[in-house]
């Protein structure tokens, strides 16, 4: 399920997830359950040791019962999961490939942690599944507002009404939001559900 052509170059496009045969060890991080995807991946596990880490209980059970992973860890929520991911990466060696499955907020936070450990995009594969809700970065006050499903959102930092752009920053792992009524105060389009 790769996204349609993006309206802007910076918007990520996610290709069907496959194991990277160039890797010798693999770490699968799952933040949202996706039964067809996980069943397909686990039916043909990669060469080399696979470790699975899930922040979703149902996905965790699916990973555990498949027997494809040498180790399966289930974390209680995204924050704990990201913490565990950091600990696993801290002790990992070159040759590892990282697969990130979930909503964009989760997988790009995970990708940020991985690049902090010196991993390059050649070692990380991302796949968006679950909610389309966006993490939004306020270009005025630099605060992050997470889980945004609408075209407009009140900034969690400065309270301005932000328009959520398609312009995405890989470094920040977020879409850019700017004040919608900066030029004509109070003039705002209707709020719509844009990212279900």
């Amino acid at each position, binding site marked *: 399920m790769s996204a349609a052509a993006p309206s802007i170059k910076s918007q990520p496009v996610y290709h069907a997830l496959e194991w990277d045969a160039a890797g010798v060890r693999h770490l699968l991080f799952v933040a949202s359950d996706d039964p067809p995807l996980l069943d397909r991946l686990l039916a043909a596990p990669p060469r080399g040791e696979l470790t699975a880490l899930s922040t979703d209980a149902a996905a965790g059970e699916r990973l555990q019962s498949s027997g494809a992973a040498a180790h399966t860890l289930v974390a209680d929520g995204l924050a704990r999961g990201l913490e565990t991911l950091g600990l696993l990466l801290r002790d990992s060696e070159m040759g*590892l490939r990282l697969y990130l499955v979930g909503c964009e907020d989760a997988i790009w936070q995970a990708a940020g942690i991985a690049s902090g450990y010196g991993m*390059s995009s050649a070692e990380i594969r991302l796949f968006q599944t679950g909610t389309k809700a966006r993490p939004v970065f306020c270009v005025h006050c630099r605060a992050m507002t997470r889980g945004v499903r609408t075209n407009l959102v009140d900034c969690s930092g400065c309270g301005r009404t932000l328009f959520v752009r398609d312009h995405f920053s890989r470094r920040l792992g977020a879409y850019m939001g700017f004040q919608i009524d900066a030029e004509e105060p109070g003039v705002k389009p209707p709020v719509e559900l844009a990212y279900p």
Partner: protein
Amino acid sequence: MNAEIGMVLSRVIELAPGIREFWLAREDGGDLPAYSGGSHIVLSLPLPGGVRRNPYSLVGDPGDRKKWRIAVRRQEQSRGGSAWLHEHAREGQPIRVSMPANLFPMSRLARHHILVAGGIGVTPIVSHARELARLGQHFEVHYAHRAPEFGVLLDELRQLAGGDVHCYVASRNQVIDFRELLGGRPLGTHAYLCGPQGMVEDFHKTARDMGWPDTHVHSERFLAPPPGEAFTVKLARSGREVAVAGDQSMLEALEAAGTEPPFLCRGGACGQCETQVVACDSKFQHNDLFLSQAERDSGRKIMPCVSRIAGGCITIDL
């Protein structure tokens, strides 16, 4: 774009049998431009038969604005450049030198760096070690050389890397085991090698087999232009014809004829001199490390710094 600086050889130091260090200073005594670790310069050597331009890695301190340092091994099959530097170059000799260019930069995001040198390939490795030491980054050096006396610049490396310099001396049957060297390394490790072709290939292959992505494995190797048959280059735009002698590269022949094609490394690595081929009535001899197989097969591109044709005539878009 091929701007040169007027410099003089300010010092010549014998480092080992067949290896000399040269210091270069500006002719006018002024400050030199800054450069980054891993950079090289191109020297225009005034050989009796004409100017020969050879690339050499800078080994000195990039913060030193008064002198540039290079180390040169006399090649057994020298085309004249390294032999001239060993036999005829004297202190005070004026030499024209290009601006530094870096085709072998370091990763700024690495958590640990493994530097590997084979023989005179130690030159950019010294410059990397210097920069990493300055930045306070974690690194280690592995240095393979023929015999103890060929471990040039080793004292400098030891000063920069402390205890983390490991020597592999061929005369004592010591070789680098890349599998061992690259195994068990933490995520975010980058490895760099400068050395002979076989070593470079072995290094990349072993790294790939062990799951290292190409983004974390870096190497540099300059080729000397291999000699071949004489041939003719036709310049499509002016209709001029230039003869390329057997011991001359196409780039050198074009320069001798007064044209100024772009170049950076002159060693088949950087891609700067990539030239469009209009027609060719002979067989290509691609010697570069830059063009893909598909580009070679197309018959539409050539790197005149190291590649040639097996006699006959080639027409290029120049």
